[in-house]
């Protein structure tokens, strides 16, 4: 069964139709890329899935159950987590890494304390290749790349089945991007976690994803395996987007 299924999702802001009957799914251990230009409605989809916005029409199913049910929503809150574009604004500037990572743990494992909690925090940092020495630092004492790793660690804390990654690399330097892509692929290999990667960059999608959903002005115009879409794009919009990808120099 598809883990996350979006069906006929439509959303309107006043007169502006942002999403029109969007439908796609993310399976277990699958990496799906949601590609589109700015204003195509990618981030609105993420917000609808995460319950930050309410769709006007359509359903979102989590393991076959509708997210409009309160109990399903509660389960899904733990099962899917998000990482956003700007790691600096995603971290409360007044908190230390320890407090930041403890927030989800306090929500899901409120009884855990002391050495066991400390070990879990260290393990989380280890999974994103950060040293446990950083626990008492504030976000402003970390580099942007380290901040994004803390965001990923925080999202991994409730042990979710799905990570929604909304432009997670855009704010980072190229070499930091490359290391994070490595990290994401490693995490996927070791834990089988699924990703829904939202981006405008086909090059990044090709490096990470197995399947692509192409979005234009709130409509899904093409979906398919990465290899198929990249080598034989059928929709004119996808073809245009692919032409705009900057070629590798040299």
């Amino acid at each position, binding site marked *: 069964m598809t883990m996350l299924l979006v069906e006929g999702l439509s959303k309107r802001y006043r007169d502006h139709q942002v999403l029109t009957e969007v439908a796609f799914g993310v399976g277990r251990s699958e990496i799906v890329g949601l590609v589109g230009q700015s204003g195509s409605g990618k981030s609105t989809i993420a917000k609808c899935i995460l319950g930050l916005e309410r769709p006007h029409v359509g359903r979102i199913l989590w393991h076959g159950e509708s997210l409009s049910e309160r109990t399903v929503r509660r389960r899904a*809150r733990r099962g899917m987590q998000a990482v956003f574009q*700007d790691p600096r604004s995603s*971290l409360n500037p007044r908190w230390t890494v320890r407090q930041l990572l403890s927030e989800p743990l306090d929500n899901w494992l409120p009884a855990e304390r002391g050495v066991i909690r400390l070990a879990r925090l260290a393990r989380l940092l280890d999974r994103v290749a950060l040293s446990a020495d950083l626990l008492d630092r504030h976000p402003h004492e970390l580099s942007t790349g380290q901040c994004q790793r803390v965001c990923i660690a925080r999202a991994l804390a*409730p042990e979710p089945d799905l990570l929604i990654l909304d432009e997670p690399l855009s704010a980072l330097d190229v070499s930091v991007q490359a290391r994070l892509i490595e990290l994401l692929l490693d995490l996927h290999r070791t834990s089988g976690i699924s990703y829904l990667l939202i981006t405008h960059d086909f090059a*990044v999608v090709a490096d990470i994803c197995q399947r692509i959903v192409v979005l234009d002005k709130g409509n899904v115009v093409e979906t398919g395996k990465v290899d198929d879409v990249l*080598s034989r794009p059928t929709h004119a919009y996808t073809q245009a987007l692919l032409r705009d990808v900057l070629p590798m120099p040299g």
Partner: protein
Amino acid sequence: MSDRVLHRFKVGLRRDPVGIVLLAIVVAMIDAILAAPLISALSPVGTDFKQVLLPPNAVNWLGTDDFGRDVFTRLLYGGRTSLTVAGVAVLIVMSIGVTVGVVAGYFGGVVDLVLTKIIDVLLAFPRLVLAIAVAALMGGGMVPLIIAISVVAWPAYARIIRGFTLQVTQEGYVLAARCLGTPTWKILTRHIALNLIGPILVLAMLDIGNLILAVSALSFLGLGVPPPAPEWGAMLNEGRNNMEIAPWLVLAPGLAIFVVVLAANYFGDIVRDSVEGRPVHGPRNWLRLPLLGATQPSRLAAAPAAPHKDEVAAPALDMQDVCIEVTDRRSPYFGRRILNNVSLRVTRGESVGLIGESGSGKSTLAALSLGLTRPPLALTAGSASLFGEDTAGWSWDDWQHVRGRSIALVNQDPLSALNPVLRVGDQIGEVMQTHLAPSRAALEDRLREVLDEVDLPRRVMRQFPHELSGGMRQRAVIAMAIVNRPALLIADEPTTALDVSTQIRILDLLRGLQDRYGLALLFVSHDLRVISRVADRVVIMRGGEVMERGLTKEIFAGATHPYTRELIAAMPGRRMRLIQAAAE
């Protein structure tokens, strides 16, 4: 967080002798008020008609009033009432104001609508008149006084806190907390209220003065603590009748109120500076340069105009062994070298890509070429020349001549580069008027021409920045940059905030303009794919030093420096190329 704020508060106080004196006086006053029975053996309410209206003397330090009561003792006991009422009122006002403001701002919708309407209605009444009415209805006394003051004071707080909450609610960490399943009450308290603590503290400090005044005013009007209990405002009122023969009766409570209110307002400012993390010292960055400009006459008779394409002339930008260091001893990074022996030359008609990641010093270099190096940074070695002239001796006015006219900048965020309340046409026109004073017709001709050059429709002239897409905004910024036909264009990460399709069009536009007008283009970016599209030559920087330089093609074909190779390897898109190659 509290440590940093405390540290900044201490530093702010240490640099401010007035603050220290005020603090010492207020601490002494509060100590005296708390220890009133120990300091004065006299009773604050005991009358003695043998000692009426005595001037200050050895026993009665501040004289006596018309009932023969010791003014100093009454001042001490009265301070207890005044400050307690004001302190309790601040706590109540803050609690109601913060709760209502945060709830209205966070939940929005109907909740917000109802709460803001209530606030609006309450704010429509004059504050003190409403307080008088409430106090009069409830009769005199301390509790009615506190209630009367709190009822009229909270709406103003609630409205300000609501505004702050609206901002904080949009922050990424609040969204993240919602995704993490954090309960709403925790988000409201730990994320939102905690991040509002700065403004809340400042408001509290600034308003405690107002509240003390309000307490005194109501007591002065006879609506406060009933006599004979002492209170500063009431003491003012009682002393009024004998003001001419016994001025100490009004001077003593008047000065006490004055000092406390002054100190509260003054601390409010220091607290705000320490909480908001502004530099505690004055704006010395701006003090120096205009002075320099004023004392030195401009050495440049006229800014160098854009040269004809095939004119052979000095390089547009020429930096030789430039070193930039932190030279301010007060800076924690004193002595750190930001640029180390960097040489860079951009000739006319050439496009140079400057590649570097965060901390490589590339933006410092761009700032240097625009004359925007500011303390704590300073040029310590080497030279920077523009159009063949050494800029070392240039005054502020010289730079003002050149900036926007011969050199122009396009930076990363077009939204912040454009003024949101001005029409795009006016902003582009302003750049031209600043330097060239064109006629109205010439200005409009050039505006239309420049919009064509950047492929923007003419209606954009009458539009505001928020009506444009990200790509159109960046085109408008480029139009602003090229409207005066500069000779050197510096583009600092101009495409980083844009999506790929827009990115490639902006790059091609810049490249086209550079070709057509023989511009010298310095293109700064961390993205090699972007650089390879626009630059003839590239310079790769890391940690303030040049790692490698050469022709773009050669560098990508065979980089020699390991760092360059690492950067090339890090570029995404390898698999995409493989897939597409296989398909062909």
